[in-house]
């Protein structure tokens, strides 16, 4: 568990970082929180010749709201989002998801950008970002572009980023109606990766019917997957027991889990159904008082 020898670069501006990435190409790896990269290097699964440490780039840190959209810098740590009270009302999935990631030590280092770029299907941010309808801001030598999260994940550990592009931020639109969300995860012990997990976000219209619904599934396919059928079945419906029952059953239909050490495919599908039902019931309860009264 000792990495190969590597060169180390620590640019302080985004431009420098992108120049270095271009220069070293495939030999280089960007170092964010290091919580996925360093273990892989120690196991010699990854053996970059150059590490480009982006921890010193201020442009990648922190978040701000502009014109109804939240822009979260890629270097924002899981722990910062977990504790960001000011985001809890409008962006409930951030804190609700972050608190489920790994343990406090890893949350203090790991970043949202690193997690998304790493594209581990067992990572929690992917499912949550699907549910929140996020867009990933990528920057390369040619400038920035926004990638809808649905187009971001390509395969296990593979994204639609170009080789010379960085994730610089995550964009999430601020909901206009009453919103509630849940992140549900089964881990066998505290701090573990999910056996299966589910992010659910629901926005209601003024009649108390579902205006927008996002359901993202974690550890249930080669990439984070969207429960499209279940989402469609929610739109326009009130959150009744009947709706929830129907919708929960639809969730596993878009899942594509496999058997692994943590559980069988069948078991994971079942968990998705159970979590969808529990999440929607809790959301319904939370939103009860919020319609019309705002």
């Amino acid at each position, binding site marked *: *568990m*000792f*990495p*190969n*020898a590597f060169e180390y670069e620590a640019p302080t501006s985004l431009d420098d970082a992108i120049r270095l990435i271009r220069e070293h190409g495939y030999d280089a790896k960007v170092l964010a929180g290091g919580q996925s990269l360093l273990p892989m290097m120690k*196991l*010699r699964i990854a053996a970059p010749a150059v590490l480009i440490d982006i921890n010193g780039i201020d442009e990648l840190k922190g978040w701000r709201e502009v014109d109804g959209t939240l822009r979260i810098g890629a270097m924002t740590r899981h722990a910062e989002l977990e504790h960001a009270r000011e985001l809890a009302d409008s962006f409930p999935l951030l804190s609700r998801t972050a608190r489920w990631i790994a*343990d406090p030590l890893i949350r203090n280092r790991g970043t949202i950008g690193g997690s998304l770029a790493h594209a581990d299907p067992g990572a929690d941010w992917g499912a949550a970002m699907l549910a929140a309808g996020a867009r990933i801001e990528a920057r390369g030598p040619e400038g920035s572009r926004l990638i809808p999260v649905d187009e971001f994940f390509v395969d296990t550990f593979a994204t639609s980023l170009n080789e010379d592009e960085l994730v610089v931020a995550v964009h999430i639109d601020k909901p206009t109606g009453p919103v509630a969300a849940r992140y549900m995860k*089964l881990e*066998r*012990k*505290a*701090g*573990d*990766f999910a*056996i299966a997990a589910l992010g659910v976000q629901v926005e209601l219209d003024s009649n108390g019917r579902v205006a927008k619904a996002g359901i993202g599934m974690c550890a249930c396919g080669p990439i984070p997957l969207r429960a499209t059928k279940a989402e469609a079945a929610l739109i326009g419906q009130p959150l009744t027991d009947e709706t929830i029952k129907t919708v929960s059953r639809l969730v596993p239909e878009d899942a594509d889990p496999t058997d692994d*050490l943590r*559980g*069988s495919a069948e*078991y994971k599908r*079942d*968990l998705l159904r*159970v979590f969808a039902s529990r999440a929607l019931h809790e959301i319904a309860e939370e939103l009860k008082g919020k319609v019309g009264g705002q």
Partner: protein
Amino acid sequence: MSEVLKPQFTGARVTRLEDARLLRGQARYVDDFEYPGTLEVAFLRSNRAAARIQSVDVTEALAVPGVKAVWTFADCPITLPDRPFQVGQPVLARDEVRFVGEPVAAVIADSRYRAEDAVEKIRVQYEPLPAVVDSRAALADQPRRVHEHRPNRFLHKTHVTDGFNEAFQSAPHHLELTFRWNRQTGVTMETRGCLALPDPVSGRLTVYAGHQSPHGLRGMLARLLKLPEHQVRVVVPEVGGGFGIKAMFYPEYVVVAEAARRLGRPVKWIGDRMESLLADAHARDAIHEVAVAYDDEGRILAVRDHVIGDTGAYAFPGFPGAVGEANWATEMLTGPYKIPHVSIEIECVFSNKAPLGPYRGVGGPIGAQVQEAIVDAVARALGKDPVEVRRANLIGPEDFPYHTPTGKVYDPGSYGESLERALALVDYERFRKDQEQWRAQGRYVGLGLCVFVEPSAMAESEAGSIPYEAVTLRMEPSGVVTAAVGTGPTGQGHETTFAQLIADQLGIDVKDVVVLHGDTDSAPFGGGTGGSRSGTIGGGAAIRAGQALRRKLTQLAAHLLEAAEEDIRLEAGKAFVAGVPARSITIRDLARTAYTDVARLPEGMQPGLEVVARYQPPGAATYSNGTHLAVVEVDVETGFVKVLDYVVVNDCGVLVNPMIVEGQIHGGVAQGIGSALLEELRYDENGQLTTTSLMDYLLPTAEDVPRMRVEHIQTPSASEGGIKGMGEGSLIAAPGAIAAAVSDALAPFGVFVTELPIRPQQIVAWVQAAKTEAQAG
């Protein structure tokens, strides 16, 4: 001279003397020792479970800068001894590899980084062989023999009590259960490692290693390296957990020591976590096929147990793990219950998995789970309360000394009392009522019991067959004491407990006693730590040494104070005449006199204050006991088990330090939760270990372990000080208690747990199957 002492420290919650350095991060472990010019070793380990080695090409590896040597078996042709089964493990694989993780080659380089670079460049040609991974198939030598020259089954033994068949057959009821424990290991926070330092001047070799038996390690190294024993010095510094794993002798130690000797440089190897999971002693991995005969009252009349144990590819020197597991589990099969008849058959096999060795409790956790599950199954079959069935079967106070059907003799314990106390602590009757209500609300809460018996301080254990321990005691001229012991603590607090026992004998402060251990140059020969022997045997030796020194101090004090020896008391740093406290002399003055004012010594008394005492307890073992009670809630939709409450009533005889005893219990319960719910070393059908990191081998964290309530009962043993061993009881009892609690929670679905660890997915499947069946019926 009166033997009756007013103990001041024994029984007190003395803060551990070790903690100051441990909590400040100042303790020094093997890897903290840095010597200039140290070379480091990285091992190339087999990635095949079974294969013939056709060739090993080290040319490229040797060319890596900084590499001093690359060894295969030909360069270090040493094989670990194994007389009984003739399957000694070569320290580097010879011609064939037999498990994933087996060391094949060693690179010795000027840094670990470079050593690992070179490991990547070693080319091994393997000719794959079918892997033996299923123990039942292995019994029939299928798919092949692990060691060509001998059948896989290396041990077969039976024990049947006279009259078993009749008792079994004439019983009104019978039931059968098959238990399966998957592989686990005692994960130590500090991985194994060693550092060998040759001394060109004296020709001696010093070996630093995290080990439970310093003298055992020295003996083996001397033997295998063909060095005189006094030319090898073993130093065991701080050890970050042992749990039995570090009582074994491993091939890496030989390679490192031999490399230091041959290269004339300090050589170090520190295992990484993957190496640790691959090649530290594994444990458990046994099947128990059990049949039980019982009567209408739930009295258990006879038990049959057929055990199949899988020991992996090799037998550890002196401790083939599967034999240890099966022996302990079956010898203790009747636990605290008066079951008159047993029929036991044990079969142990080799397989292409890592070697099995001791892990805290050895077969005890399996035995205890089987024993408790038998009682619970009988209760369920008869529709009786499991507590009632326990009461009907428990050994009572009038039964001691109790002779078990497996030939053990239990000294007195508090079996029934510990059970009743545990039940009272949770208000058992009330719990049963609440449980019914919760069930009606769809909450599945269960209560599990394990009434355990823990054999301890055995004449033989994984620490070897040394039935005694030794303590040397030296009171320095200033009156402080330096003690040295042959035990090998790995976190149990010997420095504190032994100091307490010694301080009480000498009437001095506990802080004035320093306990040295782990250095074979200073420690008296001893067996080390294992089998819960240190408290009883080592503690006994500490008391005996204290008594011997006390006798001398008393003689001297009597002479100086012109009083009779029997009137002298040692207390609070002083020797005084009973009833006349003013006639006193400080112990400090006594010590000074003994060394530097020798003209004042009584006639014939040797100067100085130094003794060595050895102690061997009177019995073959002393038995601790107690009751664990777990309350768990099972989410039947996700299969998640949460431990809600945990109660331990423990009886380990006289308590030397209740705080340390409780610490041992807390840790054992945590490991028990891991054993029951999380920990599993999984091999696939090709013999690949699929759980080689702590992301896959799941350990409980603080969040998974509940606050527990611990109470004590003290039934003294016949050993010196009345002490019983207690290092393992908590891990013996906890898995059984948790398993029983899960079974109880799921009783409405007819679920009865027989396989550990319990996976959440199984729970969901069991519950769904029960629901489907209910609908169909």
